[in-house]
């Protein structure tokens, strides 16, 4: 393909200071890097859910499937099954991935479908103007919980490790270079790559200072060690004060859904022949 402007003319409507800008640039740079490495942008498909994150489908000038709330993964799974040569990337919000579409997230990890899932985890519903999400801290005062939430958040990294994801990482929207590496690593990973991105919501949950003081990069960490990955994932529970590790927690190789679906034997494409053969068995 010819060099393409990777940004569409669509007017960007994210709030000033929104963490989505960083994710967009990281994605754009990743796509450019892939292109240099021989992966044509024609073969990329971006699948988004519904929410602020999902505007990525309008802003990036690549193939896209702007889905409905919570439903990125079934669409992405089918697109990858339909044509394994495509590179399929999902952008989902925390409401998408962890509330409305949690079942699909667990199953995508279980199947090890070869796609990359980027969760824009701002820990608040932005587009619906500020309600708590599954990863909001205990006591979060949102419009639906004016007295503060009375339930603990869950830890998406632990959940993904338990579900069988073969690439589990966490990034931060104020660390773009590192985030870019995590996304590129996820796309290059053969299997289900999950990246939880702590994303600043400038309007409803600006946790910049909180994160800036606590984040650190995982170094000298053995990404093949499942036990260690779980321990590191549990270090911060998305509620209490603790150091917050960024980077790849876990990465292993396991057969992908696509590999397991490869037919064992040659299959016929003659429809009339198949119909006649099946009917012949029924008399």
């Amino acid at each position, binding site marked *: *393909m*010819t060099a*393409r402007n990777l940004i*569409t003319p*669509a007017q960007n409507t994210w709030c000033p200071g929104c963490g989505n800008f960083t994710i967009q640039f990281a994605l754009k740079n990743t796509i450019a890097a892939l292109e240099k490495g021989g992966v*044509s942008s*024609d*073969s990329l*498909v971006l*699948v988004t859910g*519904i929410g602020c994150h999902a*505007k990525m*489908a*309008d802003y990036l*000038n*690549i*193939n*896209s*499937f*702007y*889905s*409905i709330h919570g*439903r990125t993964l*079934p*669409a*992405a*799974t*089918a*697109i990858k*099954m*339909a*044509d394994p*040569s*495509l590179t399929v990337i999902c952008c989902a919000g925390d409401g998408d991935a962890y509330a409305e579409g949690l*079942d*699909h997230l667990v*199953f995508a990890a279980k199947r090890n479908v070869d796609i990359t899932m980027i969760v824009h985890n701002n820990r608040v519903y932005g587009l619906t103007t500020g309600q708590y999400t599954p990863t909001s801290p205990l006591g979060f005062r949102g419009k639906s919980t004016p007295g503060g939430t009375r339930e603990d958040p869950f830890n998406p990294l632990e959940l993904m490790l338990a579900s069988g994801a073969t690439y589990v990482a966490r990034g931060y929207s104020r660390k773009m270079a590192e985030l870019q590496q995590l996304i590129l690593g996820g796309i290059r990973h053969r299997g289900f790559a999950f990246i939880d991105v702590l994303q600043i919501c400038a309007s409803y949950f600006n946790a910049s200072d909180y994160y800036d003081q606590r984040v650190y990069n995982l170094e000298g960490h053995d990404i093949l060690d499942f036990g260690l990955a779980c321990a590191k994932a549990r270090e911060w529970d998305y509620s209490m004060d603790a150091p917050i590790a960024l980077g790849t927690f876990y990465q292993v190789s396991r057969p992908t859904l696509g590999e397991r*679906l490869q037919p064992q*034997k040659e*299959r*016929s*494409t003659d*429809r*009339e022949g*198949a*119909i006649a053969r*099946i*009917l*012949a068995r*029924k*008399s």
Partner: protein
Amino acid sequence: MNEVSVLIGGKAGDGINSAGMMVAHLCNRLGYRVYMYFDYPSLIKGGHNFAVVRAAEEEIGTHRRKVDFVLALNQDTLALHQEMMTGETVVIFDSYRVRAEGIGVHVPDVLKEEQAPPVMGNSLLIGAFARAAGMPWQVVEDVFRRQIPKALEQNLKVARRGFDAASERRAIPPAGRSMLPVISGNEAIGLGLLHGGLDAYVAYPMTPTSNLLHFMAEIAEEHQLIAYHPENEIGVMIMALGFAYAGKKTAVGTSGGGFCLMTEGLSMAGMAELPVVVVLGQRTGPSTGLPTYSGQSDLHFALHAGQGEFPRLVAAPGDPAQAFAWASLAVSLAWRCQVPAILLVDKTLCEGFYSYDRDKAEVPQMGGIFPGTPGPGYGRYQDAENGVSPLLFPPSPDTVIKVNSYGHDERGITTEQASLVNLMAAKRGRKTAFLANEVAGLPTVNIEGARNSERVLLAWGSTLGVCREVAGHFGLRLVQPVCLSPFPADTLRKALAGAKKTIIVEENALGQLEMLLARHGIRADARIHRCDGRPFALEELIARVGEVLQ
């Protein structure tokens, strides 16, 4: 008409469905056309199952209330179905479990002697039945060899014991016609989908379409087809849309409860203009209802499911020939017009078995998809005179293909601008008209029986089989709208021209077809409803129609 009816009953796990199929195949071998109704509760073991096999010289699609033979593997078969028996009925039974007059064979003793497993008990009764019906042993052997994949020799030995223990009571004369395949409605749908060019079938198990999932999964073992069973019906529908985006012609199958979960995806199919075929097998509702029984109470649900306004095809075939044809047409029309297509069927059709004559089922040839031209200028929702935008699938060279559940512009980018919203609504409107036009040339309304009679029986879906015979019995005109959206109002009015008395038959309480007709100013004079999940037996509907005609 020369015909025979056989009731086979036992507890769940006795293999009553397969025993019924064997009886059907024996009759098929004698040159009869067959139909089988299978009645079972929602459980795996225990409970009472029964099948009614009917064989006749002409094509049939309903069972009778009175039977000529009973094969009883439990006492319930006699106790619960006394009204189905006459003085002439020949009863063949397991003398260990059942007290009766007729031909008794001791199932446990024979199975023990032949070292055969309990499930082979029905082979013993089938052998005895064949002898009682005057069939030569060769017929039994031929049918067993064709139909029994496992432990054939042992099954034959057990059947021979039954054959030898019985004597001829009521001979079924050979009908002399050539044999036909005996298939279920689900199988007819599956084959029709294949004929229409299906690439993928996605479903979560739910009666009465689970067997369609099994059938497609079997086909996918040897044929180029994706069959997949994901986590739930929400995932099913969204997967279908993902497949469609990537150019794979896809169908999903479910019943009302699963379809509830699919409606958000159905609405997205409408907005994003992604083709999908939905096989919606009705059962007795509301809610879980009677999972293994039939009904026609989801017509309005199928017509209106999903938020917003968008064109859709809804077709309700009434027998395997129509099911094959409309399954194929549903795939073609969904893709040509980029709309969701719903094949509205029910338990009676899905799980009933019928003689199927492929040669009689002509599928009208449809036009193909409208392909796009790759390049930077491509817009997935580019406006067109007929409202149908040219299609491309990723990867296409130098082309960005964007589908969107939001209001969007011609390139698929989100917009809330009033002029563009109006443009897209107008485009969907023209697509609605285009779909109606495409459908207009098809057999949307089926007319049979006494075409000039002023007395009309109006039916839809699986009651076609029983209504055909009832119309024949009384000399009525039979009118069956098959396509229900876009509604063929003019064609139906013509089909009803000159009618003085129109009787509608529906398996629901509120008269859903009648409500739809009323919207188009078409009135019925009388109505016959049934909503207990059981299909009408021939004698039952004759009695009900007879009352109305008086």
